[in-house]
């Protein structure tokens, strides 16, 4: 899993040297910037279910045709799966906040995403709507500090871009 620390170690190992002063400085820089993302991760973890539920409700409200017979949100099983998918994205975003990079989203969310949705015949627009709702719902300083919110929004944007 890529992070600042593992990148630094991989580079030092490739050169066969001990961690140098500049290696340690770049790790220190990443550590100093980590307070905001850890705050966002902590608050998102505490409210993940609610955030995901609101985002799911918002996208079904906008794309209400999904409730029609035969559509992706028509039965209870489908509804549960849709809600679960949104929750998966929010969980991966939380992982990215913890790691401090887009590794978890890239490896576990985006890789193969297009192929899966095409095979299952799922529209991506509702996912975009759900994540956009979460993007606009977050509010500083009510939910988290401005720095933390900006880290969180950056990752939501990243996920939205991957879907659109």
């Amino acid at each position, binding site marked *: 899993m890529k992070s600042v*620390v593992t990148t630094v170690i991989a580079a030092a190992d490739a050169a066969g040297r001990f961690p140098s002063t500049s290696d340690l400085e770049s790790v220190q820089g990443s550590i100093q910037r980590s307070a905001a993302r850890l705050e966002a991760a902590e608050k998102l973890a505490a409210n993940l279910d609610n955030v995901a539920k609101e985002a799911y409700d918002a996208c079904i409200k906008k794309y209400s045709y999904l409730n029609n017979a035969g559509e992706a949100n028509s039965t209870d099983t489908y509804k549960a799966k849709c809600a679960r998918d949104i929750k998966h994205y929010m969980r991966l975003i939380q992982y990215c906040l913890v790691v401090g990079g887009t590794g978890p989203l890239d490896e576990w969310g985006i890789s193969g995403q297009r192929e899966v949705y095409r095979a299952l015949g799922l529209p991506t627009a509702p996912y975009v709507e759900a994540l956009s709702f979460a993007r606009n719902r977050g509010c500083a300083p009510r939910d988290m500090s401005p720095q933390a919110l900006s880290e969180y929004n950056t990752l939501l944007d990243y996920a939205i871009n991957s879907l659109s």
Partner: protein
Amino acid sequence: MLDAFSKAVVAADASTSVVGDIGKLKQFVAEGNRRLDAVNAIASNASCMVSDAVAGMICENQGLIQAGGNCYPNRRMAACLRDGEIILRYVSYALLAGDASVLDDRCLNGLKETYAALGVPTTSTVRAVQIMKAQAAAHIADNPSEARAGAKLRKMGTPVVNDRCASLVAEASSYFDRVIAALS
């Protein structure tokens, strides 16, 4: 390769739950500078640590530098010093990452079998690693006493506080123990 953060993520993903124990990671961040001091203490003293460890190992077993010993011609002695440095280097990476995966994957995996195939005596290797473990503990704690060091007393001058990085000494020791366990 994992670090303290990605290890938490991989563990949480195994149960499809969010990373709940943020407090531990915050502590990792809060102690970050001390960790970097500890890595620096090892990296800056590496060549001294390695040569002392190998010298100590040979001191206790003179047979190693006699004809037929595993450190006998300079070529094999050099290989021995190089291996000591490699092991110490991966321990310093593990300490920097706060996770042993880099040490396991890139250094210890297959090391015992390689040494067995090359006829390297692992008891001697383990002894050298034990000496490096003691040295690392001393360098990280950076608290030499007048009584032992005498005129050679020298401090790195890292701004550590009173607990003298006890947790980092323990963590570094655990990585050396991992090397010893992998070899024996």
